[in-house]
């Protein structure tokens, strides 16, 4: 089959050129007949429009090249600067440097961004290495790191909201230029990196022969990987430091090239680069045209994600290269487990003690630490008690959701954040925010639930096409939805609408503002769903054994999956309303339960519910007290503490497995 890549690249280039001409053509013509005196349009053309178009082409090309190299090095069709967390790593590094060490930025924004990307890459590779770098594990690890970086950056914005306002715009990826500095500084760097990439084509190509084949050709697989990775890292970091996070171009362009039938690596790199440049230029021209009509302010980086994530959804069914063989089930449950009842009783006692401490340890108006005395209980406890109860409930709810998902997908990195249902709940909240000026809990809950159902149906439609709910498709659909959510929130925030801050507060996941009604509803609905999860314990014991074993044991696997997804979705929506879509509780708690020796479904559900509750109670207490009287949201606190905790946990598990 002959490649359609040239056709696609030409079409994109023509479209981009056409739109750019619509934008700047008349001014360009006017340029040839110099007018006397000052001309704003001419200035804007020379110092804004032209460098903007050039920057768009360069950045799009660089990200696409980075994506194409990453996909080859990782042997993963879904690798890209966005999906591996490289862009968000750079974003976070720049945010931290801006706030805490502005001197570092003078030393070089690129260097800071590169350190961020490198750190993100190391973490992602570390996480993925124990799953043999399977495409699925790699993208999941990338997503976790992305979420983590996003959570920390959000926390920084909440604590310094005015100061980081510009970073906000930056994070969403605005291509606006006011001179040639950025375009001209990008050009030599990207030229050098492209040259290096060209030198690497043959060694990279040889990787398709497998490690033995690579060695036979006289290359070292490790060295090739490191070289490829370094180039991709540098490309992503340079773009991030120049214009911010431009989502998904690095995934879409190489995917388009491959789907167009480009087989050879060399051509794939070239066509990806060209398509990427044309695509970003086209997107940016579209953004400018539409923004010009709407007189609005929309960052291109958010728009590429708006286009990109649905495109990823549509591409999912075609990505058959990601075979089920890549996707290994978690090792079968170890039969030897500690007496579950004793562990659970001890755990419950611990959680109760923790709740009492969280209730009574506080600070006075002048900021001193103090145990709250009985005489103050009437004034203070009505404010603290519902928060602690709801934190406990939300933690337990998300923990059970996480347990269900991990057992369902057989993947220990699955969590409610990854399912995309939390994203759906927040989409519902966004709608509520624009329908009512100040929606109450009931309205928010209704819209969040609607959003959840919408996402669930979408996931079932996209992931369920051709042969039941395949776990990896559902998770990837969730990723795409999460990215879409980021894009929408990014665009809203960058537009400077103060409602975006309200949204950020909800997304950050605070128990602030819950009352007894909310708490009672959360408790009641949560109990029903958790009971339902406990009743399906037999299914959950069998599911991790894999689809084959499940069918062999006579379970109607498609129906079982729909029921469990439904339960997990309901639990996630309920928990998300309380502590936001970013917490890692659903990821951490099931691991804690397993570490405690609770391996079978029922004890693991109860154990992770207790652990999850405890985690959120601690996070909520830290959030209420650490920056008193300012409050930090429990969801973000638990995310910033939870992700490193998970890394430690995984690292420890690996070394223990290696020892035994």
């Amino acid at each position, binding site marked *: 089959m002959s490649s359609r890549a040239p056709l696609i690249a030409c079409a994109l280039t023509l479209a981009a050129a056409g739109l750019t001409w619509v934008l700047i053509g008349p001014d360009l013509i006017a340029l040839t007949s110099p007018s006397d005196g*000052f001309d704003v349009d001419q200035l804007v053309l020379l110092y804004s429009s032209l460098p903007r178009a050039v920057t768009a082409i360069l950045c799009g090309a660089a990200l696409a090249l980075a994506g194409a190299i990453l996909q080859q090095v990782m042997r993963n069709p879904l690798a890209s600067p966005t999906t591996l967390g490289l862009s968000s790593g750079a974003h976070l590094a720049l945010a931290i440097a801006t706030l805490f060490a*502005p001197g570092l930025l003078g030393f070089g924004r690129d260097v800071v961004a590169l350190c961020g990307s490198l750190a993100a890459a190391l973490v992602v590779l570390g996480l993925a290495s124990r799953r043999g770098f399977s495409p699925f594990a790699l993208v999941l690890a990338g997503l976790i790191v992305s979420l983590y970086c996003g959570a920390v950056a959000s926390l920084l914005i909440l604590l310094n909201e005015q100061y980081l306002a510009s970073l906000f715009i930056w994070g969403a990826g*605005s291509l606006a230029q006011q001179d040639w500095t950025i375009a001209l500084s990008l050009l030599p760097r990207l030229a050098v990196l492209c040259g290096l990439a060209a030198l690497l084509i043959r060694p990279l190509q040889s990787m398709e022969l497998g490690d033995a084949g690579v060695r036979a050709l006289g290359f070292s697989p490790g060295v090739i990987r490191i070289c490829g990775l370094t180039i991709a890292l540098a490309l992503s970091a340079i773009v991030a430091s120049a214009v911010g996070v431009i989502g998904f171009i690095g995934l879409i362009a190489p995917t388009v090239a491959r789907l167009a039938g480009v087989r050879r690596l060399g051509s794939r790199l070239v066509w990806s680069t060209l398509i990427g440049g044309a695509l970003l230029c086209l997107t940016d021209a579209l953004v400018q045209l539409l923004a010009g009509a709407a007189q609005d302010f929309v960052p291109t980086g958010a728009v590429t994600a708006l286009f990109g994530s649905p495109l990823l959804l549509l591409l999912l069914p075609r990505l058959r290269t990601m075979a089920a063989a890549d996707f290994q089930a978690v090792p079968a449950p170890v039969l030897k487990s500690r007496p579950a009842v004793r562990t659970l009783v001890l755990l419950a006692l611990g959680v109760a003690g923790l709740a009492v401490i969280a209730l009574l340890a506080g600070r006075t108006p002048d900021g001193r630490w103090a145990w709250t005395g009985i005489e103050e209980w009437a004034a203070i406890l009505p404010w603290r008690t519902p928060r602690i109860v709801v934190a406990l409930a939300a933690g337990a709810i998300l923990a059970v959701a996480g347990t269900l998902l991990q057992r369902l997908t057989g993947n220990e990195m699955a969590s409610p954040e990854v399912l995309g249902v939390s994203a759906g709940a927040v989409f519902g909240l966004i709608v509520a925010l624009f329908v009512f000026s*100040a929606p109450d809990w009931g309205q928010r809950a209704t819209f969040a639930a609607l959003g959840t159902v919408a996402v669930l149906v979408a996931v079932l439609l996209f992931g369920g096409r051709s042969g039941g709910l395949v776990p990896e498709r559902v998770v990837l659909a969730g990723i795409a939805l999460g990215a879409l959510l980021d894009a929408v929130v990014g665009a809203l925030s960058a537009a400077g609408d103060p409602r975006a801050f309200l949204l950020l507060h909800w997304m950050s996941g605070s128990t602030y*503002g819950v009352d007894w009604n909310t708490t009672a509803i959360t408790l009641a609905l949560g109990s029903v769903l958790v009971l339902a999860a406990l009743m399906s314990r037999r299914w959950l014991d069998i599911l991790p054994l894999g689809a084959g074993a499940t069918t062999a044991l006579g379970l109607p696997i498609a129906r079982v999956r729909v029921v469990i997804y439904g339960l997990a979705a309901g639990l996630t929506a309920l928990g998300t309303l309380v502590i936001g879509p970013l917490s890692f509780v659903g990821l951490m708690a099931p691991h804690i339960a397993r570490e405690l020796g609770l391996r079978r479904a029922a004890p693991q559900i109860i154990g992770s519910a207790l652990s999850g509750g405890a985690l959120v109670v601690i996070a909520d207490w830290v959030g209420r007290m650490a920056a008193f009287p300012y*409050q930090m949201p429990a969801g973000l606190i638990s995310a910033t503490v939870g992700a490193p905790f998970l890394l430690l946990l995984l690292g420890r598990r690996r070394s223990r497995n290696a020892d035994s």
Partner: protein
Amino acid sequence: MGGLIGAALVPRCLAASPPDAPRVVSLDYGIATTLLALGVVPAGVVATVEWDKWVVEPALPPGVVDIGRDLEANLELIAALDPELVLATPYVAHLTPSLERIAPVLTITIFAEDGKPLERAIAGTRLIGDAVNRAAAAEAYLREADRILDRCRRRIEALNPPPIAFVNFMDARHARVFGRSSLYQDVLNRIGIENAWTGPTNYWGFQTVAIEDLARGTPSDMRLIAFEPILPDVEPTLEKSPLWRRLPFVEQGRVSILPGVLMFGMVPSALRFASLVVDHLESLA
């Protein structure tokens, strides 16, 4: 002149509020400035640590307790302050039910769909005056404010300044420009200055635009006034930018940077804005 107005309107030494004023907590900077103008020191105000950056004047007397950020004011702490009245805005409407469990809540609306923030701020000042037993002080303050704005109007008539655009820099590439529905716009109408920015604005009366947009569709003789706070890297970056340097108002030296004014404030901020701008225009003449 700004300092004089401040001295005339805000008693300098406010050790404590007069005994007949209730203990008040304010969830809004603008309301807090109005309280101070009426001689009432609130027991608690949101985000006092950033007061000097965004409000600047009137200064916040020492001893006012910081009750946290407006959207998540520390309810436990407000309860401990035991206020008799809580003043809030629709922006924190989600807190009203909780706050009502502590004390009666009076909601003052300055920004709404139909704009007119100055008119609403004047009505709000009367509401606040009634609520804190300062009705006479409120009337006197509003009369004085009227006189000051009239005087500003006469001074502007003498100056006949060009259209002016008012911005807060977000970073070196973007700015919030204020127009229709903003407090600034109402003051400009009142004192007779033409706003150079006639483009659409949001609910709060501003629009986030790229720097170059400030030169689009605006009069060629316009002046640009930027208010602090400005991030430290913005000015050096702008100085190097050819696009910025060649914008007519930059090239011809018609750019000014003035101290911060609360852009979402009430009458005290309107007066501060008017006097800062008029003083500055006179100093240029």
